[in-house]
């Protein structure tokens, strides 16, 4: 996804949310958004690679 495409996604979502401040730093927001996509890769790795195969039973002492 290009930077410009991310900016358009951000603007579209903000419009949907009625967040219409014109002075937002869209480039910075887009960079932040791109960084968070990187975090998703880390989540993928955690979920796919974890050796922990026991999804916790309900245990109030380990939420």
């Amino acid at each position, binding site marked *: 996804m290009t930077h410009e495409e991310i900016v358009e*996604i*951000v603007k579209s*979502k*903000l419009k949907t*949310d*009625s*967040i*219409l*401040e014109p*002075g*937002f*730093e869209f480039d*910075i*927001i887009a960079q*932040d*958004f791109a960084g*968070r*996509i990187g*975090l*998703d890769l*880390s*989540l*993928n*790795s*955690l*979920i796919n*690679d*974890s*050796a*922990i195969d*026991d*999804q*916790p039973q309900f245990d*109030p*002492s*380990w*939420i």
Partner: protein
Amino acid sequence: MILDSIKETSRKIHDREISATEIVVELINDVNNRDHTLNAFTSFNSELLLDNAKLADKQLSDGKYSGLLHGIPVGIKDIINVAGYPTRCGSDLYSNQVQNSDAVVINNLRTDGAIFAGKTTSHELACGVTSAPASNPWNTNYVPGGSSGGSGVAVACGYIRAALGSDTGGSIRIPASLCGVVGLKPTYGLVSTSGVEPLSVSLDHLGPITASVEDCALIMNSLVGQSGVDYTSELNQGIAGMRFGVLAGKPFSPMQPDVQQAFENAVDHLRDLGATCINIEIPELEHTLAVEFGIIPLEAGAYHLNSLQNKPGLISPSIRTLLIAGRVIPESIYHRANTGRKLIASALRRAFEDNNLNAVITPSLPATAAKKDQDEFTFDTLSEHISVSYVRTTAPFNVSGQPAISVPCGFDSMGLPIGLQIATRPFDETGALRIAHAYATSTDWQLVTPKIG
């Protein structure tokens, strides 16, 4: 101001060796003299404080002794509602309107006789690690940490023995470590957050920042209310025979050399006290920040949506970017982060069970206090934003929900404090306090106080 422990001050008040009014007059003078530099307090109402101290003294004269906190001043992070004070959250979004009711924790402290020293400086919306304009009392050119920075400063510089903070990714333990005091993040849900402005409701915790582990246990007794648990009960039982897992790989490394040395010395000291310390690895923890930052923006963005829509100019750009990220990033990330959260909690539980551990031990933070104008730390070849550095060692236990305490364990070559983090099983705050107390009372670190400020 050199303060006795809460227990000793309490005894003196009870035995009429000193009055709450005398303590408060000295506190007011101290704050008036020094807080223009330290900025620990964002709201400090001398008149209200004095009135409450006089009331505490009168109640004592009338035979109405409330308990161990009777007449003891406690600082309150400025995201927690206290009747008579505004709640500003370090943000221009909030007005100076005085609150007319207390948060649950304030009610608990008030029931036990505490009086409120003032509202302590919070990083904007409890979302950051610097807490401007507060300054680190060990060197005022450095940050005190955050987001509960003012609480750390107020305790470290000796205004008060105890303050409350909140901790979503480390905001109690970060200022505790950077200011050289004790900070406990209790088990998720153990301490009520009712009446507290949230940052991220599923990760927010409230807890004490104190001058000693014993003070911390006494404040916990009050915060938890009528639980029947006495958090001081095991303080003096020592740690001989306990087993600790030492976590020093990712995400706890890389760390500054001085921090690494202090941490290794602390582990050796725990061995000297009779504990068995074994090195363990929990690979899942390396992904902690993906989980933490997959949850906070969406929860914070949802909570502050109205402000984003109607008053975005009152939010600083960096915080606004985070909140907007919470509106823009896919909800699937939030759900996957919560899946990851369960895996991390399970991995920690497995580590405790497989190794028969009483606690895991880590450096509280990989670095000491940053300069006020510093954006990044450099660890060998890695450059990292200071907020990422600070949160990567504390957030694992926000994600898992288990208790974690930071106690002082040394100083770097600049004379800035270093912290040791001890995390125990959920609801084993008593164990965390016992271990921390054994360490703290057999070393001199918590006896050293800042000379400046």
